């Protein structure tokens, strides 16, 4: 018997060049414009938070996998993406330990406890944000811009304040808010890149933002048809959440129809919280709640197989 030199494996014998690393790298690249805008508006503190957050997530993943004797998979970039996303969801003025606690929670509790990459049923960065928000509310809800304490546009809207930041400031990101959520233009550039690279489809973000737009306009803060719905979709975490977090692979539906339902559900919950809830912003909670419904959504939105026999 001669030694077999050839690989004998099941077909197909050729594979596409796409890799998990490549996809995660694309998400990271797509988040960079928002990160740069955050550093531009919030200066050194933002950069500091971003770096600590990424380091905590990557470190937490490596240490956990070492301790549990698994293969260390930090080179798939998924932990780095979670770290960057988490940082973009934090106010620029948080103390340095906030991103560390958040990063450890995101990676170990939300991701690794459930089996690691692709197995987490909620978005790790969002889970960490909400965990931090409920545990250290003052630190997580103090906003400053150019050293001056300020309020987010949504909080101002909720209070019924008359003086709101201009639409231009809202669109560019020159407003109070989390590091990466304020600059709509930067987020949209990143989103366009993700769509162009076909990392995400437009289904979830379009239905999510569309639903928020229509419902905000329909219901309105000041009665029906009396609110500036365009202004509102660019405030808060909607653009960041719709393009970068509601589309998270492992915590959103894989089916096409399911993705529309995901977007719709996120949109409805967001508007309900924004207009009627006690909090100014509801994007994070909306996505997390819909994350829990994903298995159910998938079960009822399975594609109809080719050649399905009519019963």
């Amino acid at each position, binding site marked *: 018997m001669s030694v077999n030199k050839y690989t004998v*494996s099941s077909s197909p014998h050729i594979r596409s060049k796409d890799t*998990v690393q490549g996809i995660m790298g694309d998400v990271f690249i797509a988040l960079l414009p928002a990160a740069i805008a955050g550093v531009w508006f919030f200066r050194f503190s933002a950069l500091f938070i971003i770096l600590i957050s990424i380091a905590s997530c990557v470190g937490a993943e490596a240490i956990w996998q070492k301790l549990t004797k698994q293969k260390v998979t930090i080179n798939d970039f998924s932990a780095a993406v979670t770290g960057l996303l988490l940082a973009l969801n934090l106010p620029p003025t948080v103390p340095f330990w906030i991103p560390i606690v958040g990063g450890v929670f995101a990676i170990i509790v939300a991701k690794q406890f459930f089996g690691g990459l692709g197995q987490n049923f909620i978005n790790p960065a969002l889970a960490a944000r909400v965990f931090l928000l409920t545990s250290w509310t003052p630190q997580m809800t103090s906003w400053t811009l150019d050293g001056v304490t300020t309020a987010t546009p949504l909080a101002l809207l909720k209070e019924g304040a008359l003086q709101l930041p201009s639409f231009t400031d809202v669109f560019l990101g020159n407003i109070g808010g989390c590091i990466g959520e304020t600059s709509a233009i930067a987020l949209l550039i990143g989103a366009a890149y993700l769509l162009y690279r076909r990392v995400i489809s437009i289904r979830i973000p379009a239905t999510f933002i569309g639903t928020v737009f229509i419902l905000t306009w329909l219901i309105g803060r000041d009665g029906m048809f009396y609110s500036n719905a365009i202004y509102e979709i660019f405030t808060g975490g909607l653009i960041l959440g719709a393009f970068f977090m509601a589309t998270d*692979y492992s915590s959103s539906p894989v*089916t096409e129809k399911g993705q529309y339902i995901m977007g719709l559900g996120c949109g409805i919950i967001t508007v309900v919280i924004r207009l009627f809830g006690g909090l100014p912003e509801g994007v994070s909670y909306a996505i997390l709640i819909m994350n829990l419904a994903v298995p159910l959504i998938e079960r009822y939105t399975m594609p109809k197989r080719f050649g399905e026999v009519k019963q």
Partner: protein
Amino acid sequence: MQLLTFKRGIHPPDGKHLTENKPIEYLLPKGDLVYPMVQHIGAPCEPTVKKGDRVLVGQKIGEAKAYVSAPVHATVSGTVKNIAPMLHPNGDKILSVIVENDGLYEEHESIGPKGDYKNLSREQIIEIIKEAGIVGMGGAGFPTFIKLSPPPEKKIDSIIVNGAECEPYLTSDYRVMLEETDRVVTGLKIILKLFPEAKGYIAVEDNKMEAVKALLEETKNIDNIEVKLVKTKYPQGAEKQLIYAVTKREVPSGGLPADVACIVQNIDTVVAIHRAIVRGRPLMRRIVTVSGGAVKDPKNFKVKIGTSYRELVEAAGGLVSEPVKIISGGPMMGMALTSLDVPVCKGTSAILCLTKEEAELPEEQNCIRCGRCIAACPMNLMPLQLNQYAIHKEIDKFEAIHGMDCMECGCCSFVCPAKRHIVQSVRTAKKLVRSNKKNA
């Protein structure tokens, strides 16, 4: 011309440039010929010769003993050297007749024109095709005479000749359409004689426009034959997908093309029918693409069935680098071989010697639920879930989400960024389901 297609599918790198402009070369065998008694779906043949017998070109050496089977013929004249189990391209050892070629190519008396097909009856044509041992030459190897004998309650209105050739690297069908256009068309005419009410279609992907032109020219005065342009997309040539593209009908799950009034035939099969009727020759030769990055001079060959793969690779200049994988058939659905010492069978469409760069076996990572497999699956299944259920042997759930509908085209594994071996797991689960059913 309207461009037809199916939903989903993929666009793999096609590799056809290596051989698409290489005219078919006729290759005579040098060494012994090996004729496995299984070259089709169905019951194995029984050898009709014994060691030491002299056989002639076209002589039947394997007799079909069951309805679903196809006889095997000698393709050279010479002496039966042995009858023994030999390595088959499918990886098994199969009882084979080994013939030492005397180089005389003396023909058996049974060879000879069967007369004008227009004067033959339906039964006569079916019988000739059956006796010629013709099977589907796209790879599946289902006996053609059975395909052409649907139950009388199934009316057939479309005969589709499959010139899609969607597998990367393969150009044998393309060369046949280009070089033997008239035979393809006459072969289809013969099939249409069996189904006078049906219309004939020759479906060709739009990356083979030279073949389309030749076919259009050849069929311009024929009313009941139409050339259909289909989109270059894998798996356009899968039977159900091709039927959908051409007729917009979906073959029901678990059903056959005849359920939607269609019959699909491979290009080379149609040419084999032409040869069997017009020239009275059984299925003895086929066109094989020898290609891949490790082959010095990739080519298309017309070879005698039974010729060793090794001879073909040598005739293509041999290997320039050490391949990591040798494949019988296309890279999407072909079989990986352990050795080149296997014979060309009726279903051998290609021999590919792929380099590390072309076909390295990647390491599996966790599924990230990106959903690309769903977007690629031409059967509209959920490959990522099938993969999970298959791995965990949750066979009931596997069946409940229609795992048995998978045709193993490989689109999901191809697109998977985590490089999961989805098709492999599904294949194993399907086998398990079948064996459970058998034992139940």
